[in-house]
């Protein structure tokens, strides 16, 4: 008998435990029941997000959350303005970026000679700025959703001390729950999905906040047209 069989046999040998206050019954699939009372939380605002906010309202909420998290953010109205902003933030520092064709607004062409996912690890680790796109921007929490895939190295949003993320207005998504519903197939196909909500932080020593302990201590978001 394998350990698997023993563990499962022990679990099946005991009576199925029952618990008080389970308002949603049992079974593996409870999506519909939970969706009926979708719990949408807030912090910068005290009102729950309605499920059909305008682009402008979503952007306002996203920015308010970024501010609360200590994330620098810029809204630009043209691709040229996005590239100019990127150039100003990056300066002449070494960059680790997503593949050129994965970055919107021609930002990839601007950084054509930067390190990417194919570069050696020590070259990646020496980058000062990581430049990425994102797969969704969650307005409710100010989170950047990053689904792994071709040309989108995880290291770009992880190793450099500054992470610069380019977000398209059409990527704004109300909640993590909505993102899960809309992008379930993409999530299932990818190896990894990470939500980034602010700069890396710790308060392990005397509850004193320190940013950038392992991940980027500075996160900058540019929202393009």
């Amino acid at each position, binding site marked *: 008998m*394998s*350990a*698997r069989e*023993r*563990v499962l046999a*022990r*679990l099946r*040998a005991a*009576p199925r*435990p*029952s*618990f*008080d*206050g*389970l308002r*949603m*019954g*049992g*079974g*593996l*699939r*409870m*999506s519909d029941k*939970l*969706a009926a009372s979708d*719990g949408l*939380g*807030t*912090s910068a605002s005290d009102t*729950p997000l309605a499920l059909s906010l305008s682009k402008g309202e979503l952007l306002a909420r996203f920015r308010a959350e970024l501010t609360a998290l200590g994330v620098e953010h810029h809204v630009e109205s043209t691709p040229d303005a996005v590239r100019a902003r990127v150039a100003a933030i990056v300066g002449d520092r070494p960059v680790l970026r997503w593949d050129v064709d994965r970055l919107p607004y021609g930002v990839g062409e601007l950084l054509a000679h930067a390190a990417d996912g194919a570069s050696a*690890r020590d070259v990646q*680790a020496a980058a000062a700025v990581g430049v990425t796109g994102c797969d969704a921007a969650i307005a409710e*929490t100010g989170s950047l959703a990053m689904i*792994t*895939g*071709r040309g*989108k190295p995880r*290291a770009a949003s*992880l190793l450099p001390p500054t992470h610069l993320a380019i977000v398209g207005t059409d990527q704004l998504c109300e909640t*993590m729950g909505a993102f*899960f*519903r809309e992008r379930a197939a993409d*999530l299932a196909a990818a*190896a*990894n*999905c*990470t*939500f*980034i*909500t602010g700069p*890396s932080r*710790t*308060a*392990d*020593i005397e*509850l004193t906040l*320190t940013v950038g*302990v*392992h*991940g980027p201590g500075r996160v900058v978001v540019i929202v393009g047209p």
Partner: protein
Amino acid sequence: MTAPSADFAARAGAAIGDARLQDALGRVTAVFGSRRTSAFASLPNAEAVRDAARAARLTAVANLPDYLERFESRLLANGAHVHWADTAADANAIVAGIATRAGCTRAVKSKSMVSEETHLNEALEAAGVAPIETDLGEYIVQLAHDRPSHIIAPIIHLTRQDVGRVMQRELKVPYTDDTQALAATARTRLRSEFLRADMGISGANFGVADTGTIVLVTNEGNGRMVTTLPRVHVVLMGIEKLVANLEELDACLKVLARSGTGQQLTVYTTMVNGPRREGDADGPDELHVVLLDNGRSRIRAGDTAEILGCIRCGACLNVCPVYRNIGGHAYGDTYPGPVGAIVTPGLRGLEPWRELPHASTLCGACRDVCPVRLDIPRMLLALRRDVAAADLQPRSLAWAMKLFAWTASRPALYRAATRVARVWLRARARDGWVRALPGLAGGWTRARDLRAPAAKTFQERWQERRA
């Protein structure tokens, strides 16, 4: 590492006598407590979300074998390797075996309570693998050869001066008590470990059965490093940590960080579906998931099955009047606080840990703050009943309780006894307080005075009013 329960009173006494620890405990638990309160205040339908999270977790516990089979099949379809372990030693042997087969010698770890439970680090070292803790608090615990004292803040028992001295001694760096500088030292040291490690070891905050997803929540980014850079990623998780699907995960994530640190979400929420896919630039080549029982199936079969719904947020520690006075080490094992008082006897056996269920005032604050509404006082009482039934409590206490029950169920005798006790106590009191009592009752007055009883009992006054 595991301390015998018989020393509980001694450990608690030492903690209460440690003025610095008392100061830290008071400050930390108050800060966490108020952050939690404001985080939930801004979640308008918080009670409904808590209900959803409770239903998600306890439905998983109730249907655990089905969930596990579903989870395993999804993991395998995603390209992960799945291992099952009956005991802590088995789990450690499996992880060491993975390292040996894959030729790994340097492991970086993100915070994992299950690996503390199994004492994985010692087992890895014995197998020739050097495990490095990478959560800042856990790293300092490892450097100091100490133990974590809080579920989410492992070193609240240390000051920044302590941390400075540990780093000076162990890393040969100049002393500083500047927290930014201390964190920077850890960042530099650990960055080189991340870059050269060939194995990453993590726990799991949740496993999603429908999708075969491992979910990790971290703030520092070490969890992302551990799951991204080394070529082999091993997840060590208890069999109970499942939810059905992503919508249930959403509900659980909404309450976890709010309850733990008072954040809406932790900085990084990492969902691991499998090893790197074709065309991915980074990510591990191999993903192994070790599913550990180690007593959980026994807990599920008993009266404390509900504790398996715990999401390890630490909120019950911060509000517990006992934890706030004795800290995490006094509980003697991996899991401190009210949750530990139930989990430890469940995992390790009631007899050696029989004092833990009594380390509670049963005030119910833990139940009130628990994001998944676990009825912790009920479970503590169930364990106390088991302690009494198994005749594990001190003889003197058993006899005292029997004597009390016998007296209290005889009204005339009870009235006479209270009259005698009242006269006797009032004779010993000065300025309305009794400062010392003899025998078993001395346990009360050792740490505090007892207010002298009133001149008349409630029953006497009641009779007078009716007359």
